[in-house]
């Protein structure tokens, strides 16, 4: 039976990918960011997933303003790293477990989550940066070392789906995974965040106190975390901090009680607070 054994939260700041691609992770600015990922990469080798279910947001790459799906599930055989205006990242093509993805798509819709199905989709830094964080340096000739099922969530045009809805979707993903009859070790990623505002006069807002409290309640009191309002995210964590609703999808797919085996928090990476959690699921 397929089992979700861990949930991983991770910021997907594009500059983290750029730092890896340009081999400058040892520079004093980046060293403290990457130091916090060393444990994660070792942990990931020991707990190697067969499939990563990766919740992220597209940054106007696969979807421009003409189509804005709230939840879009990647069902294609593979996903090519996109050119976001600076050329594609030099990382491997992302390969799907297509049958499993189709099963999840069907299960979610019958479970009344009316997702969009993507049979062709390029993926941007929102998806490839968290893979780079967990799997380390890779070239386009390599393999990521896992299959990946992407779920793109709209957080660009307000309103993003609510924290509560994201949490409930996570629970539905759990039911879909649990009903797949193949022995698979599945990890679920919730990416984006933490506090950051990229636009207008308030750009650069960081709320470290709020971010740490959010991680505490996400881990230990998820019923509280799912009640956080959009206005609280916007006001307290900046206009782009609302990406943290995607962490709720991850959390909803885990048990009520989980073990936090790793936490990393650092300010800044470019304009953003970097937050990262590894939660083990015992089901």
């Amino acid at each position: 039976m397929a089992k979700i054994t861990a949930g991983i939260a991770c910021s997907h700041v594009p500059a983290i990918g750029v730092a890896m691609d340009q081999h400058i992770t040892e520079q004093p600015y980046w060293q403290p960011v990457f130091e916090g990922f060393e444990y994660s990469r070792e942990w990931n080798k020991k707990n190697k997933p067969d499939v990563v279910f990766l919740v992220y947001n597209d940054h106007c790459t696969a979807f421009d303003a003409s189509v804005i799906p709230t939840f879009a599930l990647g069902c294609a055989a593979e996903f090519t790293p996109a050119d976001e205006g600076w050329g594609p990242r030099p990382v491997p093509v992302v390969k799907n477990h297509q049958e499993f993805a189709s099963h999840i798509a069907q299960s979610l819709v019958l479970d009344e989550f009316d997702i969009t199905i993507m049979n062709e989709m390029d993926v941007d830094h929102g998806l490839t940066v968290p893979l780079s964080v967990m799997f380390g340096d890779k070239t386009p000739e390599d393999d990521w070392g896992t299959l990946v099922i992407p779920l793109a969530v709209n957080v660009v045009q307000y309103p993003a789906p609510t924290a509560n809805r994201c949490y409930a979707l996570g629970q539905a993903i759990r039911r879909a995974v649990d009903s797949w009859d193949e022995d698979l070790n599945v990890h679920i990623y919730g990416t984006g965040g933490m506090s950051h505002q990229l636009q207008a006069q308030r750009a650069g807002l960081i709320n470290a106190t709020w971010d740490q409290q959010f991680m505490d309640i996400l881990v230990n009191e998820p019923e509280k975390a799912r009640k956080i309002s959009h206005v609280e995210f916007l006001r307290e964590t900046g206009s782009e901090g609302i990406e943290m609703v995607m962490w709720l999808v991850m959390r909803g797919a885990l048990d009520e009680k989980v073990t936090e085996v790793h936490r990393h928090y650092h300010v800044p990476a470019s304009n953003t607070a970097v937050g990262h959690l590894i939660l083990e699921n015992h089901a």
Partner: protein
Amino acid sequence: MTRKAKEYDDIPGTFVFDADRSRQGYWLNQFCISLSKEEGRQAFRDDPEKAMSKFKMTEEQKQAIRDRDWNRLLELGGNIYYTSKLGAFDGIVFQDLAAMMSGMSRDDYRKMMVDGGRSPEGNRYKSEWEKK
């Protein structure tokens, strides 16, 4: 129809990209995203006015593009993930764009971020900015 008041209107220095802004900025954003492909960048380099004319933007929006008035672009319905492609076209990295929008020098902004970022204290409500 006048725009309805929103519960996030009292957040200072922030344009929440909602359906109203999305409608207003649709062609502006589609123009900006055309710059994420080399074909679009070449067209804009060759003849900026001609490249802009392919999108049904208002004269105000075109002027804000000519002026590279980054906050004005947001005010006219632009979204940062789109307008940043115009920034990238000019060779401006995201952090420097953020510095410009917040009215700070590049170095001051960088220092603020390294020192922990802009504090939420005094930056949650418009009323707090009006007192300054």
